[in-house]
């Protein structure tokens, strides 16, 4: 069996169509690699683990931000169109430059362990005698499943409208993972407030595209928004 796949070429500024033989279980990335190895050896695409774990191979597949390595060809009817994520500057073909997100991560206050923990016993074994239960950690653990594939940023219309005034869902989820860490001593409400969390109008597009199935809007963005409002009221 064969399928048609159209891949964006930055040199020609258009989609180029290829016909690729299909086997059961093939994903879009298999088809892109097939094109690279058989038809155009200079085509640029980014991938690494090819197992949905590293988050390198994000692209828009038939308009939907998706991981190429997790999107099965048999889940798509008709032609397959693969274009790069539009929220980032294009480097070449399917490759974009997401390194501006490092700047946001640097600016976000990092995890800082609570003084109460440190004062009990010092040094590297300071956490040795801490008691934390499963229910203490599960809330923050949800956001730590994030593989930073950037798909949520690509799906976010608040970013599309407000540009760099809003840091986007991935970073709010990161802030939530730190704020909800029971050992953390800082508060990232001011950071989120200054960085446009208010622009999010909770349409949950980010949750829909998240390959790690994190409920970004319900469990990270809304609670953080509420905490910010609480602070303002008090």
């Amino acid at each position, binding site marked *: 069996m064969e399928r048609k796949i159209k891949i964006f070429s930055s040199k020609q500024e258009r989609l180029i169509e290829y016909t690729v033989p299909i086997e059961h279980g093939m994903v879009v990335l298999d088809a892109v690699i097939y094109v690279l190895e058989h038809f*155009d050896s200079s085509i640029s695409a980014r991938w690494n683990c090819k197992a949905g774990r590293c988050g390198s191979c994000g692209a828009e597949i038939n308009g939907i931000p998706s991981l190429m390595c997790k999107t099965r060809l048999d889940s798509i009817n008709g032609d397959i169109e693969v274009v790069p994520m539009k929220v980032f500057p294009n480097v070449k073909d399917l490759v974009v430059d997401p390194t501006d997100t490092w700047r946001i991560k*640097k600016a976000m206050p990092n995890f800082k362990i609570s003084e109460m923990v440190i004062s009990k016993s010092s040094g590297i074994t300071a956490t040795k005698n801490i008691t934390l239960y499963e229910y203490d950690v599960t809330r923050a653990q949800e956001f730590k499943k994030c593989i930073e594939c950037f798909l949520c940023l690509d799906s976010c219309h608040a970013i599309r409208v407000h540009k760099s005034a809003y840091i986007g869902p991935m970073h709010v989820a990161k802030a939530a993972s730190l704020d909800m860490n029971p050992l953390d001593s800082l508060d990232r409400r001011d950071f989120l407030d200054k960085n446009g969390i208010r622009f999010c109008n909770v349409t949950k597009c980010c949750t829909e595209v998240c390959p790690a199935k994190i409920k970004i809007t319900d469990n990270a963005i809304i609670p953080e928004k509420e905490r910010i409002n609480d602070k303002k009221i008090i």
Partner: protein
Amino acid sequence: MKDKKFSELKTDILIIGAGGAGLRAAIEAHDAGANVTIVSKSLLGKAHTVMAEGGIAASIADVDANDNWKVHFSDTFVEGVYLGDWKMIEILVKEAPDRVYELEQYGALFDRTPQGKIMQRAFGGHTYKRLCHIGDRTGLEIIRVLEDQVLHREIQILDETTITKLVVDNGRIIGAIGLEYMTGNFIAISCKSVILASGGCGRIYKTTSNSLESTGDGLALAYDVGCALINMEMVQFHPTGMVYPESVKGLLVTEGVRGEGGILLNNKGERFMKRYSPKRMELDARDVVARAIYNEILKGNGTEHGGVYLDITHKGAAFIKKKLPAMYDQFKDFADIDITKQKMEVAPTVHYHMGGVKVDAETCATNIKGLYAAGEVTGGLHGANRLGGNSLADILVFGRRAGIWSAKYALHLDAGNKEILKAQLQNEIKRINSYLRSDEEPSQYNNSKFRIYELLDTLRQAMNEYVGIIRNAKGLYNSIEVLENIKKEIKDIKVSGTTKYNRSLLARMELENQLIVAECIIRSAIERKESRGAHFRNDFPKKNKKWLKWIICKKKNGRLALYPLQLKQIPKHLSFIQKEKYALVIK
């Protein structure tokens, strides 16, 4: 169009690799006062460490109160079939608990016991429940917290950059030459010290759990400057990789599945491990389980797609989804299998390289001045077989040490000779541009692969076939022949495009490195005329005391030379422990 642009960079310490070892080294070297630069082939946070699932082995005894560093030492040394570097193992098992607590202080949140302690799970070859874990994504958590630490320090990160050459002058490291993917520019990095933390080489095999970038470049870079490589024949096959669909063949099925109670069955429904390892069953060391599965498949007891069954359905859906969420998703998404109701099909897959750069246990220094190494790229620690969970401990313990000692070395040193670095830069620009065609490569309308990818397939297929779980002289010499043919042809292979984000150019460059690593593995495998740990030869099926030594691979007059190295007698304070282990056997 050929691109000859380049930039220059000066740093104290250059770290090659942004996995766990590289990031941990960067933190330590920075805090010691050094100026640090990290280069990485993948984007920051995408390194192969994110794939580590099961956990980190440390005898913190939060679950089994009897555990201590001595038992961990014995497990590691004995399962490494007495070939491990006991000095490295001692350091590893004594320091691993501190590295776990340190992760907590960096913000990691481990799964907890009902008593509120760190949850530890059972794993093959470990006497006690020892693996501290976060579901089945322990590696991801480690990468994220280390990445946070690095990003909040003044550490320069050059991700999507590959190092093409280390530059040595007067026997000491003075810099390195790299190629940045996104710009296509070359970069000359002047540095006083280099830490190799570049990971493994699983991609020289066809069936592997390793990421695209694990092509053994670090091993080849080290070999090129005269560094000694040891135990290169020791390639670990993880017993359980996916076999179907073809798209995900080789993808890892975590040992955690067996650790949490999964059992292995052949096509007759027989729990065959009881024939191979009646006491430890599915949780024997990886080499034993991998060979057992391989044997069952060879005997015709395999499944439809050439594997065996791995069954965890008896544990119930709620337990499986909580403890093995990534495995549940992986089989559902890629194979249409619901592991709470159906058996998985699995077969061995190349997973880890025990061999690598020879380092000093205390300092992680190599035989080249200024060159340090940590993590999978090094050899010695795991002997002939690695225990699950010991690699995450390895990258943190020795990553930290490499950071400390490279900083001590570099801080009071002058920069090297710039002219030599510049000359090497020009050589590298010339060499790599010579891999590019000046015209467009004609499209392959007959559906055959471009030649570079065909050669890569040939190498990976030969490694699978001849240098796999069961080896012998005939097969190994066959693989040498394949290698020689590729070497002859590769000189004329050119790819189209420019130096900018060119996957095929990278494949062309990596293939050169893969050939060097493959040759070291094959030659060492021919040399070791016995079976030990992961190295099994059916023409020498027994373990032989005579071979209780390391095989060193080193470049001499432009060719590969092998030297045996007798192992040092284990010191008194450790040999005592070993005896104690035998008294402790409870398996």
